[in-house]
């Protein structure tokens, strides 16, 4: 192992010299404690290293060791229900090794090398294989089949050996292609997207059970979304709801510069929440990457790449994966901090000029793909990133760069949050560019006329905001009866449809079918009401107290009892 010397230390940046064979983005071990770092710039003799742990007490003259490897994650059975830090060290092992506070220079392996997994082969000796082919399966958690794939870098074309069904560790050779050994786990560098056959246009929706999202601003399976919001606008709750309820097979949650207690909330809550589809704990299909705000800043930069590489691995198996990154602003700030220490020329607000290209490259790793392998299976990777704009100012660089590449925008609004309207997604500013692609899907899964009802409801809400201006000036009574009626209906849409209580069991998740019935009911009341007004009926008679109460109880209708909707009118 080649050894160099530290020349300078400032915070998370270390400059070393005497490393001739160093490569860009190679992992190095810094100082006597051998703390982990990554090479981010080479300038003549000088090698700039961003260090993933605290550098207090490290000084010039101490050694630096090269490892020859890029920063990589270990992929294989055992990932699910894992809780890792930004560079894939399991937090549990860290606790076992250094106690409640995170120490330094601790090495911890991502996957348990001793655990035996029950491998069931699906190929036989002599079969032709290409990278991505499924060699066999492991039931990683009940209801989740982990597919063991031929790694992307495989050169051999013919299976010369495959293990019989039985228990193996991730270190055991379970297959051979020619002389190449294949194990159940392999490593992949986090900064390289995993290869796929083809990228496709997304055409199905990711159902989240959140009415304002699924009905009004849906995201496609394989799409990208952005949740910007000032603090206190419920950004994290939206992300948590998404993680809990969306119908993805695997959830990767990256807490990037998050609050410690919030991560703990996830860590304690996820194992308890039951997956609505399987009844198993949600944690069994989740991987958490937790890099809280006071953990080293460089590991925060790496955490989103660690997360998306793991996500891509599950996508390659042909699953639908949803990745949530909260918050990418903290990732950008980490970039800025490192860039400042490198004394690079700053762009907007001190962020490096490459912020835009890095952001775009990250979101482009999302999509609907034809995966590697001869069976042409499809895999989906949906990416939703939260941004935390300073002062709620959406014109700041991180938000702007994110909006340029994401297709759904859920505008969280603190004034809605103050009114305790949750999810505080503003219906006037948000948008989804997927409604064309997935409109057909919604009609099929929700019910016929879904898109039409949605458009009408949206029209009512928009008209409401225009009318409110007038009401402010001249009062409600100056409006025509029809407009007054419209305001009543808009209020119903807001309070009884858009407002959704994450902490109430029946209301926390609404199926697409139920959403359809709810919106349909409201629009039908509106349309029949309009006719009755023309016939001279009063609003109070059309929309009596009893009907209003029935409508407001719509959200409490149980999922297995949807015919109750027929009784409302």
């Amino acid at each position: 192992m080649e050894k160099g010397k530290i020349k300078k230390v400032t915070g998370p940046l270390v400059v070393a010299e005497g490393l001739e064979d160093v490569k860009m983005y190679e992992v190095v071990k810094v100082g006597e404690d051998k703390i982990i770092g990554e090479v981010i710039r080479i300038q003549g003799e000088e090698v700039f290293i961003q260090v993933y742990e605290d550098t207090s007490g490290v000084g010039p003259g101490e050694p630096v060791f090269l490892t020859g490897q890029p920063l990589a994650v270990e992929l294989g059975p055992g990932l699910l229900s894992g809780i890792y830090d930004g560079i894939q060290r399991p937090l549990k092992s860290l606790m076992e090794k250094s106690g409640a506070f995170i120490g330094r220079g601790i090495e911890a392996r991502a996957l348990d090398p001793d655990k035996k997994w029950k491998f069931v082969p699906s190929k036989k000796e002599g079969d032709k294989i290409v990278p991505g082919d499924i060699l066999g399966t492991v039931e990683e958690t009940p209801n989740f089949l982990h597919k063991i794939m031929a790694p992307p870098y495989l050169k051999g074309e013919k299976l010369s050996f495959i293990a019989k069904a039985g228990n193996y560790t991730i270190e055991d050779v379970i297959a051979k292609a020619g002389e190449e050994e294949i194990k159940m786990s392999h490593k992949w560098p986090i900064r390289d997207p995993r290869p796929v056959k083809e990228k496709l246009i997304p055409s199905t929706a990711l159902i989240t059970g959140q009415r304002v999202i699924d009905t009004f601003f849906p995201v496609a399976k394989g799409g990208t979304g952005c949740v910007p919001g000032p603090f206190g606008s419920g950004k994290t709750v939206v992300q948590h709801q998404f993680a809990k309820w969306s119908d993805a097979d695997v959830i990767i949650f990256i807490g990037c510069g998050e609050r410690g207690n919030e991560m703990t909330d996830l860590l304690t809550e996820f194992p308890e929440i039951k997956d609505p589809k399987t009844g198993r704990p949600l944690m069994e299909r989740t991987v958490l990457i937790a890099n809280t705000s006071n953990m080293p800043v460089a590991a925060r930069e790496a955490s989103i790449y660690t997360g998306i590489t793991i996500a891509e691995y599950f996508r390659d198996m042909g699953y639908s994966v949803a990745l949530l990154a909260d918050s990418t602003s903290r990732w950008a700030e980490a970039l800025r901090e490192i860039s400042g220490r490198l004394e690079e020329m700053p762009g907007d607000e001190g962020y490096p000029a490459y912020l835009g290209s890095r952001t775009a490259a990250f979101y482009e790793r999302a999509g609907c793909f034809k995966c590697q392998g001869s069976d042409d299976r499809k895999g989906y990777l949906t990416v939703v990133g939260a941004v935390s704009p300073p002062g709620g100012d959406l014109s700041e660089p991180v938000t702007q760069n994110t909006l340029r590449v994401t297709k759904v925008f859920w505008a969280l609004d603190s004034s809605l949050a103050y009114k305790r309207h949750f999810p505080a997604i503003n219906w006037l500013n948000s948008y989804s560019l997927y409604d064309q692609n997935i409109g057909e899907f919604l009609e099929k899964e929700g019910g016929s006329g879904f898109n039409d009802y949605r458009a009408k409801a949206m029209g009512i809400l928009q008209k409401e905001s225009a009318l409110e201006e007038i009401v402010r000036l001249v009062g409600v009574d100056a409006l025509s009866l029809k407009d007054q009626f419209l305001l009543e209906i808009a209020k119903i849409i807001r309070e009884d449809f858009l407002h959704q209580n994450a902490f109430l069991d029946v209301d926390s998740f609404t199926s697409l079918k139920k959403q359809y019935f709810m919106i349909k009911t409201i629009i039908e009341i509106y349309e029949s009401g309009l006719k009755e007004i023309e016939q001279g009926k009063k609003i109070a008679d059309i929309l009596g107290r009893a009907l209003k109460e029935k409508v407001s109880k719509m959200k409490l209708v149980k999922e297995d009892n949807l015919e109750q909707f027929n009784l409302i009118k």
Partner: protein
Amino acid sequence: MLKIYKTITESAGPLLVVDGGEGVKYDELVEIETQDGSIKRGKVLEAAKNRAVVQVFEDTRGMNLKNSKAKFLGRTMKFGLSSDVLGRIFDGAGEPKDGGPEVIVEKYLDINGSPINPYAREYPEDFIQTGVSTIDGLNTLVRGQKLPIFSGAGLPHSKLASQIARQAKVRGGEKFSIVFGAMGITFEEAEFFISEFRKTKVLSKSVLFINLADDPVIERITLPRIALTAAEFLAFEKDMHVLVILTDMTNYCEALREVSASRKEVPGRRGYPGYLYTDLSTLYERAGKIKNKKGSITQIPILTMPDDDITHPIPDLSGYITEGQILLSREIHNKGIYPPVDVLPSLSRLKDKGIGEGKTREDHSGVLNQLFAFYARGREVRELALVLGESALTEVDRKYLKFADEFEKRFVSQGYLEDRSIEETLILGWELISILPKEEMKRVKEEHIAKYAKNKAD
């Protein structure tokens, strides 16, 4: 072997450059002996092969570079602790300030601490009764939370903080130990806290760290770290429940900006360093509870928003790290209401696990949401009434208006010495909710209306 250098070549503000420093470590402590023999302390900000940048904690005025010596101590800054620190007052460098003897040290701890492993944390969910309705009822504080008070110059945040320090208790009666850190506040403000603590006999269970407005600016950066180290010691080694009050975080950030500027760093927003968020998080994140440990750290940092602007980087970045905020409003203060808490933008993120049956009362969450919703609507109606006149309002809207007024007068407003129990707060809440007719009560459960509402008739 300690190394002493006589090669201090440059001084700018609180920074010194020492040449030829070999074996210097990042973040290590430095002692500077000036020409007249006095000792100043500092720490290494940048360790290069033959050059070290040192940040001096005290003033560099009157220092002659040629005749001063820098001694590198080979260790990072540590604070010596034992149970004896209770009842004592220290300065920003951790030296006794009350004329008392040196503390007999049981353990030295690094003032920078280490991040708590999220896996080892325990989620905070024990209700703390502060006796203040706007906090207990609407923005409930729980043990292990960090809940700042966002205030403005001239608002009674100190009074509120000291009221909380006096009244805060967990149900069952356990009281808190207080760690109080004051950065750059005036002598009068500091005296207010000390005399309040003394009067209410809190002082004997408190540790005070005080850096006055005319004390060295640099010590404002070390002070909260030392204070939190003391808090961690008391909480996690001595099993105490510690309430940390830090005032005023704005002064801390200003000090940080001063050092950053003299280091000629690329500034972020409004001249504050780009790492302000990371830096603040290393303070705020030291609140919490740890599995299998009895103690806890609850933080109430106070910050004054420059020009009452919540989008200013200091409140903004704080808000992203802390678990909510209690916002004081000048408008409400001018109406003569104490404490002038603006409940709408105030928030406690951890309240949901700390309230409800077994913690406070079954109806708490409903009452809370209903009060918020009514008050938000009431405020809207009030604006409407300004334009149209009260007579143009509908009957229901007039009730909303009445609600908003009564809410401020009776719920928000309370005396400095008034310690309301959570039951009293909830009863008051129901009285106010009952101003409005039943079909408006959308956020409370039917059975709770029947059980608690004053006016059951529809």
